[in-house]
């Protein structure tokens, strides 16, 4: 019995030890397993966080990412699809073919994808035009790369699509600006030389008219010549405006007043057109050349009138606008306060295919002889020259709206005074500096007819020498800006050193142009643009003499 009990005790102890060891072993193993699981969880967490980061990048990127299988069917599309194409990723069409428009340029893009699949080589980015869910178009730049398996076989295509609809417009704007610049340089040069020629003709005509009365048989012919010179001068003015070489009297301008004045002038002669003004009160002023701005609105009104051969309505609206960089970026303009002026007509509208050409100089849809093709080109040049923005919206048959944005100003606009022009006799000595013999001859004769004594200098150096010799006698210097050798600016600076109180009237066929922007900053006494009339010159001189 004792032996049996002893055996049972030993057996119990035996099993107890086994149970304990097994339990302890199990505990240790599960603890190790637990550590391992925790490590795996750590890796999973890191993976999840990595995925989260990647998803954040993808979802907040400006690009739409996607993955296609080798049949070009979408396997994955990032949520940007909603913004770009109007489809949520789950509702996306299955291939690009289902999304593209019938634009023939799309074919090249799709072929590029096929090439990438066939060659396993990344192709150059391409553009495709797609139709959004709402029917609108979007231009996408596609950058695709083949995804390879371990054997180097293409198993998918990974791509990124970028909305370049805006960029295309920006590039088009830039191309337009470069083209305009080139044409402008050419047009400006022609206008300059042409103005000099006109100055000669104008001068001669003025001199002849001084010697005859209105009953003379040539009087009407000479007046006719003056009118043609005026028309030719207007033409060069348009050319110079387009070439952005005509902004010379910048002052704060009340645009509402200017619009009212321009529309009244225009409306008086165009009775079949109704002009509606919707002008914001307390409109900011715009620092601009008033005559150029009048030219802008006159051209836009004429353009609208031509678009409505059977009459119609024109709406001119003005308002203050704060433009942010999102808006101004595509126009290469700065954000800030702008005065927006919209000129809308109810006319025939502009075809989409010619819309981007309308600001080109000499582009016209009008029959030969009805338009020069310089109206809208000069509008474009003037607005750009004022750091402004011009945009056009038009649909065939639905009218056209030109939106103009000009930098707003807080400065108060001075009152506008309109002066009658008549020739005023004067007295004193004038140093006339010009490299053109034709201008010298005509100018000298005109000035002498006005009662002035005239000294001639054919270049800058000669002018300085003469002035140093006779500065006590010379009252005013009429100085050409564009001259070979020492130009007008340099000459002016030298003369100014000689006599800080010197009175100088600048003259140019260019106006105060881009080639001499320094003039705008100089303390000058005045400027007169060739071809100038006898009367205008006489008034300028009298003002400078202080005897007006």
């Amino acid at each position: 019995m004792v032996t049996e009990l002893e055996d049972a005790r030993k057996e119990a102890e035996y099993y107890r030890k086994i149970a304990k060891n097994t339990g302890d072993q199990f505990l240790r193993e599960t603890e190790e397993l637990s550590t391992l699981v925790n490590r795996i969880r750590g890796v999973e967490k890191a993976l999840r966080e990595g995925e989260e980061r990647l998803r954040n990048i993808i979802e907040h990127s400006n690009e739409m990412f996607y993955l296609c299988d080798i049949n070009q069917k979408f396997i994955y599309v990032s949520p940007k699809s909603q913004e770009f194409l109007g489809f949520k990723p789950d509702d996306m069409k299955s291939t690009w073919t289902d999304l593209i428009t019938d634009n023939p340029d799309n074919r090249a893009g799709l072929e590029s994808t096929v090439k990438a699949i066939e060659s396993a080589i990344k192709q150059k980015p391409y553009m495709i035009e797609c139709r959004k869910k709402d029917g609108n178009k979007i231009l996408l730049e596609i950058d695709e790369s083949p995804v390879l398996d371990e054997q180097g076989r293409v198993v998918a295509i990974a791509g990124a699509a970028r909305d370049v609809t805006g960029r295309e417009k920006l590039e088009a704007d830039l191309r337009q600006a470069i083209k305009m610049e080139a044409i402008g340089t050419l047009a400006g040069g022609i206008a300059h030389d042409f103005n000099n020629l006109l100055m000669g003709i104008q001068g001669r005509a003025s001199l002849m008219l001084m010697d005859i009365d209105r009953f003379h048989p040539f009087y009407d012919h000479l007046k006719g010549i003056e009118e043609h010179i005026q028309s030719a001068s207007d033409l060069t003015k348009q050319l110079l405006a387009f070439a952005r070489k005509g902004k010379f009297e910048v002052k704060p301008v009340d645009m509402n007043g200017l619009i009212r004045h321009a529309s009244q002038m225009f409306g008086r002669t165009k009775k079949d057109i109704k002009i509606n003004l919707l002008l914001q009160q307390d409109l900011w002023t715009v620092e601009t050349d008033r005559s150029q701005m009048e030219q802008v609105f006159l051209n836009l009104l004429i353009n609208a009138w031509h678009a409505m051969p059977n009459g119609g309505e024109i709406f001119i609206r003005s308002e203050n606008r704060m433009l942010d960089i999102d808006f101004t970026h595509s126009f290469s303009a700065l954000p800030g306060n702008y005065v927006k002026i919209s000129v809308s007509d109810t006319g025939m509208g502009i075809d989409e295919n010619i819309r981007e050409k309308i600001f080109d100089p000499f582009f016209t849809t009008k029959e030969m002889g009805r338009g020069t093709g310089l109206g809208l080109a000069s509008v474009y040049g003037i607005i750009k020259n004022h750091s402004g923005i011009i945009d056009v919206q038009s649909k065939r048959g639905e009218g056209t709206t030109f939106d103009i944005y000009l930098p707003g100003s807080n400065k108060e606009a001075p009152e506008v005074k309109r002066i009658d022009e008549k020739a005023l006799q004067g007295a004193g000595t004038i140093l006339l500096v010009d490299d053109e013999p034709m201008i010298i001859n005509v100018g000298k004769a005109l000035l002498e007819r006005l009662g002035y004594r005239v000294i001639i200098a054919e270049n800058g150096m000669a002018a300085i020498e003469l002035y140093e010799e006779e500065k006590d006698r010379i009252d005013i210097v009429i100085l050409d800006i564009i001259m070979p050798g020492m130009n007008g600016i340099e000459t002016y600076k030298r003369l100014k050193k000689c006599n800080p109180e010197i009175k100088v009237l600048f003259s140019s066929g260019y106006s105060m142009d881009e080639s001499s922007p320094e003039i705008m900053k100089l303390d000058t006494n005045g400027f007169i643009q060739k071809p100038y009339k006898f009367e205008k010159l006489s008034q300028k001189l009298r003002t400078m003499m202080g005897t007006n």
Partner: protein
Amino acid sequence: MKVGIGYANETDGMASGRKVAEKAIRDGNIKNPCLVIAFAGGNLDHFGFFNGIKSIVGNDVPVIGGSAIGVITNSELAYEGHPSVAAIIESDNLKIELGVAGDLDKNEKKAGQWLGAKFSGTDAGKLLLILYDSVKKGPTEKGPPVINASPPLIRGIEEKLKQNIPILGAGVIGDYGFGVTHQFCGSYVGSQSVVGLMLGGDFTPYYRVMHGCIPKDGIYHRVTKADGPVIYEMDGRPVVKIIDEQYGSSEWQKQNPVNRLTLAINHSEKYGDFLEADFVTRLISGALPDEKGIVLFEPDIREGDEVLFMLRNGTMMIDSVKKNTVELFDEILSRGEKPAFGLYIDCAGRTSAYSETLYEEASEVQQICNRYNVPLMGFYSGVEIAPVKGKNRGLDWTGVLLVLAQKY
């Protein structure tokens, strides 16, 4: 009975409250709510959340519940971020009585007595649901957190009740760091409170306790030195030394609570077959910094008690949930009743993140509730309360599934 469940996971408390209430009303097509049971993640603004719910259901509808480490619905299971949930109940024949007692941290038994006294006039209750603050004191450098003990609380309640009814519920907890918790006390947000909801009327409560531990080696140890929740010695040896030997190192001492090892008292035959439902398990909160003893989650193991070391087992835990949930629903259906609402009170240690399982055991409950179209609301708790062997007990490392069923 109509029940709607709403879930949210948003940082703004007020917005979360409004959202869960609006969703629950829509989900259950609720017209006249009579009760809201709601839980919010510990880092959500509980006052805003409570007010958000009230702004939708009105001030007359009681809102009970409180903090939770995570929440469970038929389709959601979340313990990250700012999860929150609400169940809104509409019923003409559900009898609801609400009681609240405070100062739990001062004396659990008195708080229990105070709460029990509120229901002493009731003899038609079928179930008492209690939700109380688990955390008496957060962890400090000197030791692990101290929790409000469930045994004296339950005894206090039972002493004052007229009838022996099942008490189910939870000690609520808002985060694994044992931070401050809140309770929704019907019309206000409290702390160190116990909220009781006596439910009577035309329904039957069904419940099951899910386990997940097995005896490590089946060896009984006698507790030879203990004081409250701290055990110092077993079989005359320092308990920390005994556990060091089992692990083969002292690394486990860094764990709060201890991950794999628990203690249990077997309430059935000592050397009989292992019946999980007869074991009351206690989590080990951690070792004392001086290594002189271990702190248990509840202070109900005393000197002289025989205990076994248990191993937490993920596979067994999931099997237990599946088996018990299926059996519970089979029981309800076999009695010709229709399950109307499921409440799953799940120990926060049972999340897959804490128990190193590959998937969530609560998803088993979700699947089965979804199979029967039963609205489910669950939350992760500190302590679970449910009857074991006919006696209401505080439990650790369990899941308690309560289903209210009605006759067809």
